[in-house]
């Protein structure tokens, strides 16, 4: 089956810093989503981005489907950005989301 790998596994930054989170996948995908899981456990949709680039405020994402990766950019980090960031994909071989292991982000004040 498809493998989804996220890097780095952990990231600690000072408030105001920028960061790039990466998601690699081993096969062609139909759909890719980025989620933020806050410290209370809620999964928040960030981007639905099977290909191309999208921006939402300080966050942006780029998926290069032909090269099998997606990047999530966070600029001017705030403490509320802390949590775990997951990417998840749908691919032809399965009907369910296949998840990466997540990147745990800690933003220090």
């Amino acid at each position, binding site marked *: 089956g498809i493998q989804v790998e996220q890097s780095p596994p952990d990231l600690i930054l000072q408030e105001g810093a920028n960061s790039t989170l990466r998601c690699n996948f081993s096969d062609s995908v*139909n*759909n890719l*989503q980025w*989620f933020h899981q806050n410290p*209370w*456990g*809620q*999964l*928040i*949709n960030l981007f*639905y981005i099977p290909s191309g680039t999208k921006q939402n405020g300080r966050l942006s994402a780029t998926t290069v489907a032909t090269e099998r990766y997606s990047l999530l950019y966070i600029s001017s980090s705030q403490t509320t950005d802390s949590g775990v960031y*997951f990417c*998840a994909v*749908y*691919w*032809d071989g*399965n*009907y*369910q*989301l296949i*998840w*990466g*292991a*997540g990147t745990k982000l800690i933003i220090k004040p």
Partner: protein
Amino acid sequence: DAMVIQNPRYQVTQFGKPVTLSCSQTLNHNVMYWYQQKSSQAPKLLFHYYDKDFNNEADTPDNFQSRRPNTSFCFLDIRSPGLGDAAMYLCATSRDVAPNTEAFFGQGTRLTVV
């Protein structure tokens, strides 16, 4: 705002005592999912409904059951909770099944078994 709502946010149950978690949605989506998430892990799909059609994952324990009485509501029943069932339970919806669909999650129910 259209959304996915889970109740309760926190649930404490006794070992072996049946417990029910609920999920409602105002998105009018056809598909509803239940996921289990243990600490520091990605969510794991337990089952999903496409409309009234129930789909159970092969490795979902028989201890877990689900009901979807109408489009808006879905319930997760744990018949005899064990200590290993303590986890975050997440409900999600999507307009259609994969692949060209987007999933939306509720805020989760954190289950503690004592």
